[in-house]
Protein backbone atom coordinates (compact mmCIF):
# COMPACT_ATOMS: atom_id res chain seq x y z
CA UNK A 1 0.00 0.00 0.00
CA UNK A 2 2.82 2.37 0.92
CA UNK A 3 4.32 2.01 -2.54
CA UNK A 4 1.27 3.70 -4.04
CA UNK A 5 2.27 7.33 -4.17
CA UNK A 6 -0.28 10.01 -4.93
CA UNK A 7 0.87 12.48 -7.55
CA UNK A 8 -2.26 14.60 -7.75
CA UNK A 9 -5.65 14.58 -6.16
CA UNK A 10 -8.89 16.32 -6.93
CA UNK A 11 -11.20 16.89 -3.99
CA UNK A 12 -14.62 18.47 -3.99
CA UNK A 13 -16.90 18.46 -7.01
CA UNK A 14 -15.37 16.46 -9.87
CA UNK A 15 -18.41 17.33 -11.95
CA UNK A 16 -17.47 21.01 -11.89
CA UNK A 17 -13.99 20.17 -13.20
CA UNK A 18 -15.69 18.07 -15.87
CA UNK A 19 -17.86 20.99 -16.87
CA UNK A 20 -14.80 23.20 -17.19
CA UNK A 21 -13.20 20.66 -19.50
CA UNK A 22 -16.43 20.19 -21.45
CA UNK A 23 -16.66 23.93 -22.08
CA UNK A 24 -13.28 24.21 -23.84
CA UNK A 25 -14.30 22.59 -27.14
CA UNK A 26 -17.64 24.37 -27.56
CA UNK A 27 -15.94 27.64 -26.54
CA UNK A 28 -13.50 27.34 -29.42
CA UNK A 29 -16.26 26.13 -31.73
CA UNK A 30 -18.66 28.97 -30.96
CA UNK A 31 -15.83 31.47 -31.41
CA UNK A 32 -15.07 30.03 -34.83
CA UNK A 33 -18.73 30.02 -35.85
CA UNK A 34 -19.45 33.62 -34.93
CA UNK A 35 -16.06 34.88 -36.09
CA UNK A 36 -16.50 33.37 -39.51
CA UNK A 37 -20.18 34.30 -39.56
CA UNK A 38 -19.44 37.97 -38.97
CA UNK A 39 -16.71 37.84 -41.60
CA UNK A 40 -19.13 36.29 -44.08
CA UNK A 41 -21.73 38.98 -43.35
CA UNK A 42 -19.09 41.69 -43.82
CA UNK A 43 -18.12 40.25 -47.19
CA UNK A 44 -21.65 39.64 -48.38
CA UNK A 45 -24.16 41.77 -46.48
CA UNK A 46 -26.96 40.80 -48.88
CA UNK A 47 -26.75 37.16 -47.70
CA UNK A 48 -27.35 38.22 -44.09
CA UNK A 49 -30.53 36.15 -43.62
CA UNK A 50 -29.05 32.85 -44.74
CA UNK A 51 -25.75 33.39 -42.91
CA UNK A 52 -27.43 34.37 -39.66
CA UNK A 53 -29.72 31.35 -39.75
CA UNK A 54 -26.87 28.91 -40.40
CA UNK A 55 -24.73 30.68 -37.81
CA UNK A 56 -27.37 30.23 -35.11
CA UNK A 57 -27.90 26.62 -36.18
CA UNK A 58 -24.20 25.84 -35.86
CA UNK A 59 -24.11 27.67 -32.55
CA UNK A 60 -27.01 25.61 -31.20
CA UNK A 61 -25.45 22.30 -32.25
CA UNK A 62 -22.05 23.20 -30.75
CA UNK A 63 -23.49 24.60 -27.57
CA UNK A 64 -25.32 21.33 -26.89
CA UNK A 65 -21.99 19.72 -25.91
CA UNK A 66 -21.28 22.37 -23.30
CA UNK A 67 -24.80 22.08 -21.95
CA UNK A 68 -24.61 18.31 -21.61
CA UNK A 69 -21.39 18.91 -19.67
CA UNK A 70 -23.25 21.43 -17.52
CA UNK A 71 -25.98 18.94 -16.62
CA UNK A 72 -23.53 16.12 -15.77
CA UNK A 73 -22.45 17.48 -12.31
CA UNK A 74 -26.08 17.67 -11.25
CA UNK A 75 -26.83 14.18 -12.55
CA UNK A 76 -23.76 12.43 -11.10
CA UNK A 77 -23.65 14.30 -7.82
CA UNK A 78 -20.76 15.93 -6.08
Amino acid at each position, binding site marked *: MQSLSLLAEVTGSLGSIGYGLAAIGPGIGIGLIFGNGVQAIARQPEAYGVIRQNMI*LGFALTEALALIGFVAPFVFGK
Partner: protein
Amino acid sequence: MGVSSLVAAGAVRLSDESNCHLIPWGGGSDCGFPAPTADIFSFSPYSTLAIAGQEFNFTKPVVLAIIGSIFLIVFFLAVFRKPKLVPGRMQSVGEYGYTFIRDGVAREVIGKEGDKYVPFLFSLFFFVWMLNIWGIIPFAQFPVSSRIAWPVALAIVIWPLYMWLGMRHQGPVKYFTNMMFPPGLPKPIYLILAPIELVSNVLVRPVTLAIRLFANMFAGHLLLTIFAVATFYLISPSLIGILGSAASFVMSVILTAFEAFIQALQAFIFTLLAAVYISTSLHAEH
Protein backbone atom coordinates in the same frame (compact mmCIF):
# COMPACT_ATOMS: atom_id res chain seq x y z
CA MET B 1 -42.67 11.74 -1.12
CA GLY B 2 -39.06 12.23 -2.22
CA VAL B 3 -39.83 15.60 -3.74
CA SER B 4 -41.80 16.89 -0.77
CA SER B 5 -39.04 15.91 1.65
CA LEU B 6 -36.56 17.74 -0.61
CA VAL B 7 -38.76 20.83 -0.48
CA ALA B 8 -39.05 20.51 3.26
CA ALA B 9 -35.26 20.30 3.51
CA GLY B 10 -34.98 23.32 1.23
CA ALA B 11 -37.52 25.27 3.28
CA VAL B 12 -35.62 24.54 6.48
CA ARG B 13 -32.38 25.59 4.82
CA LEU B 14 -33.93 28.82 3.53
CA SER B 15 -35.33 29.80 6.92
CA ASP B 16 -31.94 29.15 8.53
CA GLU B 17 -30.33 31.45 6.00
CA SER B 18 -32.49 34.42 6.86
CA ASN B 19 -29.80 36.05 8.97
CA CYS B 20 -26.68 34.92 7.19
CA HIS B 21 -24.32 37.69 6.04
CA LEU B 22 -20.65 37.91 5.12
CA ILE B 23 -20.14 40.64 7.73
CA PRO B 24 -22.38 39.59 10.65
CA TRP B 25 -24.76 42.24 11.98
CA GLY B 26 -28.07 42.49 13.80
CA GLY B 27 -27.56 39.34 15.84
CA GLY B 28 -26.83 37.18 12.78
CA SER B 29 -23.70 35.23 12.03
CA ASP B 30 -21.65 34.32 8.97
CA CYS B 31 -22.63 30.77 8.07
CA GLY B 32 -20.94 30.67 4.66
CA PHE B 33 -22.36 31.60 1.27
CA PRO B 34 -25.68 29.74 0.93
CA ALA B 35 -25.15 28.75 -2.71
CA PRO B 36 -28.41 27.77 -4.38
CA THR B 37 -28.62 24.11 -5.35
CA ALA B 38 -30.91 22.11 -7.60
CA ASP B 39 -33.42 22.15 -4.71
CA ILE B 40 -34.70 25.56 -5.84
CA PHE B 41 -36.33 23.78 -8.78
CA SER B 42 -38.59 21.61 -6.62
CA PHE B 43 -41.90 22.93 -5.36
CA SER B 44 -44.52 21.48 -3.07
CA PRO B 45 -47.86 21.22 -4.89
CA TYR B 46 -50.57 23.82 -4.28
CA SER B 47 -53.19 21.12 -4.69
CA THR B 48 -53.37 17.53 -5.83
CA LEU B 49 -55.92 16.04 -8.16
CA ALA B 50 -56.44 12.27 -7.99
CA ILE B 51 -57.93 10.68 -11.10
CA ALA B 52 -58.19 6.87 -11.15
CA GLY B 53 -55.44 6.43 -8.58
CA GLN B 54 -53.06 8.71 -10.51
CA GLU B 55 -52.06 11.88 -8.71
CA PHE B 56 -51.71 15.14 -10.61
CA ASN B 57 -49.80 17.76 -8.64
CA PHE B 58 -50.44 21.42 -9.38
CA THR B 59 -47.05 22.91 -8.64
CA LYS B 60 -45.81 26.39 -9.55
CA PRO B 61 -44.49 25.42 -13.04
CA VAL B 62 -47.77 23.71 -13.94
CA VAL B 63 -49.83 26.70 -12.82
CA LEU B 64 -47.53 29.10 -14.70
CA ALA B 65 -47.75 26.98 -17.86
CA ILE B 66 -51.56 26.92 -17.67
CA ILE B 67 -51.75 30.70 -17.15
CA GLY B 68 -49.27 31.19 -20.02
CA SER B 69 -51.24 28.97 -22.38
CA ILE B 70 -54.49 30.77 -21.55
CA PHE B 71 -52.78 34.13 -22.11
CA LEU B 72 -51.45 33.00 -25.52
CA ILE B 73 -54.85 31.66 -26.62
CA VAL B 74 -56.68 34.81 -25.50
CA PHE B 75 -54.05 37.11 -27.01
CA PHE B 76 -53.96 35.49 -30.43
CA LEU B 77 -57.74 35.10 -30.52
CA ALA B 78 -58.07 38.82 -29.82
CA VAL B 79 -55.46 39.59 -32.47
CA PHE B 80 -56.58 37.33 -35.30
CA ARG B 81 -60.32 36.83 -34.64
CA LYS B 82 -61.50 39.73 -36.78
CA PRO B 83 -58.56 40.64 -39.02
CA LYS B 84 -58.78 43.99 -40.75
CA LEU B 85 -57.25 44.83 -44.11
CA VAL B 86 -55.42 47.74 -42.52
CA PRO B 87 -54.10 46.18 -39.30
CA GLY B 88 -54.44 47.97 -35.98
CA ARG B 89 -51.71 48.09 -33.38
CA MET B 90 -52.37 44.66 -31.85
CA GLN B 91 -52.89 42.99 -35.22
CA SER B 92 -49.58 44.40 -36.44
CA VAL B 93 -47.79 42.78 -33.51
CA GLY B 94 -49.45 39.43 -34.22
CA GLU B 95 -48.74 39.64 -37.92
CA TYR B 96 -45.13 40.57 -37.29
CA GLY B 97 -44.74 37.41 -35.20
CA TYR B 98 -46.44 35.35 -37.87
CA THR B 99 -44.35 36.65 -40.77
CA PHE B 100 -41.22 36.25 -38.65
CA ILE B 101 -41.87 32.51 -38.31
CA ARG B 102 -43.16 32.10 -41.86
CA ASP B 103 -40.39 33.97 -43.69
CA GLY B 104 -37.55 33.57 -41.21
CA VAL B 105 -38.04 29.93 -40.30
CA ALA B 106 -40.52 28.00 -42.44
CA ARG B 107 -39.74 29.40 -45.92
CA GLU B 108 -36.04 29.90 -45.20
CA VAL B 109 -35.43 26.36 -43.90
CA ILE B 110 -38.08 24.11 -45.45
CA GLY B 111 -38.71 26.03 -48.66
CA LYS B 112 -41.88 26.29 -50.70
CA GLU B 113 -43.88 23.58 -48.91
CA GLY B 114 -42.88 25.15 -45.58
CA ASP B 115 -46.13 27.14 -45.42
CA LYS B 116 -47.94 23.94 -44.40
CA TYR B 117 -45.92 23.79 -41.19
CA VAL B 118 -46.20 27.45 -40.22
CA PRO B 119 -49.10 26.94 -37.74
CA PHE B 120 -47.15 24.22 -35.94
CA LEU B 121 -43.90 26.19 -35.83
CA PHE B 122 -45.73 29.38 -34.84
CA SER B 123 -47.46 27.67 -31.90
CA LEU B 124 -44.21 25.96 -30.92
CA PHE B 125 -42.24 29.20 -30.89
CA PHE B 126 -44.71 31.19 -28.85
CA PHE B 127 -45.41 28.35 -26.43
CA VAL B 128 -41.70 27.78 -25.74
CA TRP B 129 -41.11 31.51 -25.46
CA MET B 130 -43.98 31.80 -22.98
CA LEU B 131 -42.56 28.94 -20.89
CA ASN B 132 -39.12 30.59 -20.91
CA ILE B 133 -40.21 34.16 -20.27
CA TRP B 134 -41.83 33.25 -16.96
CA GLY B 135 -38.24 33.28 -15.69
CA ILE B 136 -38.05 37.08 -15.74
CA ILE B 137 -41.67 38.07 -15.10
CA PRO B 138 -41.68 39.68 -11.63
CA PHE B 139 -43.19 37.60 -8.79
CA ALA B 140 -43.38 34.48 -11.00
CA GLN B 141 -39.65 34.35 -11.87
CA PHE B 142 -39.41 30.69 -12.65
CA PRO B 143 -38.69 29.48 -16.20
CA VAL B 144 -41.13 26.61 -16.64
CA SER B 145 -38.87 24.91 -19.19
CA SER B 146 -36.17 24.51 -16.54
CA ARG B 147 -38.19 21.49 -15.43
CA ILE B 148 -37.00 18.89 -17.93
CA ALA B 149 -40.45 17.33 -18.38
CA TRP B 150 -41.59 20.29 -20.53
CA PRO B 151 -38.80 20.20 -23.14
CA VAL B 152 -38.99 16.39 -23.17
CA ALA B 153 -42.73 16.51 -23.85
CA LEU B 154 -42.15 18.95 -26.73
CA ALA B 155 -39.36 16.75 -28.13
CA ILE B 156 -41.72 13.77 -27.91
CA VAL B 157 -44.14 15.72 -30.12
CA ILE B 158 -41.45 16.63 -32.67
CA TRP B 159 -39.71 13.22 -32.88
CA PRO B 160 -42.66 11.18 -34.25
CA LEU B 161 -43.55 14.08 -36.54
CA TYR B 162 -40.26 14.15 -38.42
CA MET B 163 -39.86 10.35 -38.37
CA TRP B 164 -43.33 9.94 -39.83
CA LEU B 165 -42.82 12.70 -42.42
CA GLY B 166 -39.54 11.11 -43.49
CA MET B 167 -41.10 7.68 -43.91
CA ARG B 168 -44.04 9.14 -45.81
CA HIS B 169 -42.04 11.35 -48.18
CA GLN B 170 -39.05 9.07 -48.79
CA GLY B 171 -40.50 5.63 -48.08
CA PRO B 172 -40.20 3.65 -44.84
CA VAL B 173 -36.93 1.90 -45.80
CA LYS B 174 -35.55 4.53 -48.16
CA TYR B 175 -35.74 7.13 -45.38
CA PHE B 176 -33.26 5.19 -43.28
CA THR B 177 -30.96 4.25 -46.17
CA ASN B 178 -30.90 7.87 -47.38
CA MET B 179 -30.08 8.91 -43.85
CA MET B 180 -27.31 6.34 -43.35
CA PHE B 181 -25.72 6.32 -46.81
CA PRO B 182 -25.27 9.86 -48.16
CA PRO B 183 -23.97 9.41 -51.72
CA GLY B 184 -20.52 10.25 -53.03
CA LEU B 185 -18.24 8.87 -50.33
CA PRO B 186 -15.61 6.11 -50.50
CA LYS B 187 -17.13 2.73 -49.57
CA PRO B 188 -15.18 1.98 -46.33
CA ILE B 189 -16.28 5.29 -44.83
CA TYR B 190 -19.86 3.98 -44.63
CA LEU B 191 -18.77 1.38 -42.08
CA ILE B 192 -18.21 4.21 -39.61
CA LEU B 193 -20.62 6.78 -40.98
CA ALA B 194 -23.80 4.69 -41.22
CA PRO B 195 -24.16 3.84 -37.51
CA ILE B 196 -23.16 7.37 -36.48
CA GLU B 197 -25.76 8.90 -38.80
CA LEU B 198 -28.45 6.51 -37.60
CA VAL B 199 -27.79 7.18 -33.92
CA SER B 200 -27.44 10.93 -34.41
CA ASN B 201 -30.64 11.27 -36.42
CA VAL B 202 -32.85 8.93 -34.44
CA LEU B 203 -31.57 9.18 -30.85
CA VAL B 204 -29.30 12.19 -30.39
CA ARG B 205 -31.58 14.72 -32.10
CA PRO B 206 -34.56 14.59 -29.73
CA VAL B 207 -32.31 14.23 -26.67
CA THR B 208 -30.17 17.27 -27.47
CA LEU B 209 -33.27 19.23 -28.50
CA ALA B 210 -34.76 18.73 -25.04
CA ILE B 211 -31.49 19.10 -23.10
CA ARG B 212 -30.49 22.30 -24.91
CA LEU B 213 -33.65 24.13 -23.88
CA PHE B 214 -33.72 22.63 -20.40
CA ALA B 215 -30.05 23.27 -19.58
CA ASN B 216 -30.12 26.86 -20.85
CA MET B 217 -33.10 27.74 -18.69
CA PHE B 218 -31.75 25.76 -15.73
CA ALA B 219 -28.36 27.50 -15.91
CA GLY B 220 -29.97 30.91 -16.39
CA HIS B 221 -32.25 30.55 -13.40
CA LEU B 222 -29.40 29.28 -11.22
CA LEU B 223 -27.26 32.25 -12.29
CA LEU B 224 -29.97 34.77 -11.43
CA THR B 225 -30.56 33.07 -8.09
CA ILE B 226 -26.85 33.11 -7.22
CA PHE B 227 -26.67 36.89 -7.67
CA ALA B 228 -29.97 37.48 -5.88
CA VAL B 229 -28.77 35.41 -2.93
CA ALA B 230 -25.38 37.14 -3.02
CA THR B 231 -27.08 40.56 -2.88
CA PHE B 232 -28.64 39.55 0.39
CA TYR B 233 -25.56 37.74 1.69
CA LEU B 234 -23.18 40.69 1.13
CA ILE B 235 -25.40 43.40 2.59
CA SER B 236 -24.36 45.02 5.87
CA PRO B 237 -24.47 48.55 7.32
CA SER B 238 -20.94 49.41 6.20
CA LEU B 239 -19.42 50.89 3.03
CA ILE B 240 -17.95 47.62 1.76
CA GLY B 241 -21.18 45.76 2.46
CA ILE B 242 -23.31 48.31 0.59
CA LEU B 243 -20.89 48.43 -2.35
CA GLY B 244 -20.66 44.64 -2.64
CA SER B 245 -24.38 44.21 -2.33
CA ALA B 246 -25.08 46.95 -4.90
CA ALA B 247 -22.60 45.42 -7.36
CA SER B 248 -24.30 42.05 -7.01
CA PHE B 249 -27.73 43.64 -7.46
CA VAL B 250 -26.64 45.51 -10.61
CA MET B 251 -25.21 42.25 -11.92
CA SER B 252 -28.52 40.47 -11.32
CA VAL B 253 -30.34 43.22 -13.27
CA ILE B 254 -27.86 42.95 -16.15
CA LEU B 255 -28.21 39.17 -16.15
CA THR B 256 -32.00 39.49 -16.19
CA ALA B 257 -31.71 41.49 -19.41
CA PHE B 258 -29.28 38.89 -20.76
CA GLU B 259 -31.73 36.13 -19.81
CA ALA B 260 -34.51 37.91 -21.70
CA PHE B 261 -32.33 37.69 -24.80
CA ILE B 262 -31.37 34.04 -24.17
CA GLN B 263 -35.01 33.06 -23.64
CA ALA B 264 -36.10 34.46 -26.99
CA LEU B 265 -33.01 32.96 -28.69
CA GLN B 266 -33.62 29.51 -27.24
CA ALA B 267 -37.28 29.57 -28.28
CA PHE B 268 -36.11 30.56 -31.77
CA ILE B 269 -33.44 27.83 -31.87
CA PHE B 270 -35.95 25.22 -30.70
CA THR B 271 -38.31 26.20 -33.52
CA LEU B 272 -35.49 26.46 -36.05
CA LEU B 273 -34.22 22.96 -35.24
CA ALA B 274 -37.74 21.54 -35.43
CA ALA B 275 -38.00 23.11 -38.90
CA VAL B 276 -34.59 21.69 -39.89
CA TYR B 277 -35.62 18.19 -38.78
CA ILE B 278 -38.86 18.46 -40.77
CA SER B 279 -36.91 19.76 -43.76
CA THR B 280 -34.38 16.88 -43.75
CA SER B 281 -37.28 14.44 -43.58
CA LEU B 282 -39.01 16.00 -46.59
CA HIS B 283 -35.96 15.94 -48.85
CA ALA B 284 -33.15 13.41 -48.69
CA GLU B 285 -29.78 14.91 -47.83
CA HIS B 286 -27.40 15.16 -50.71
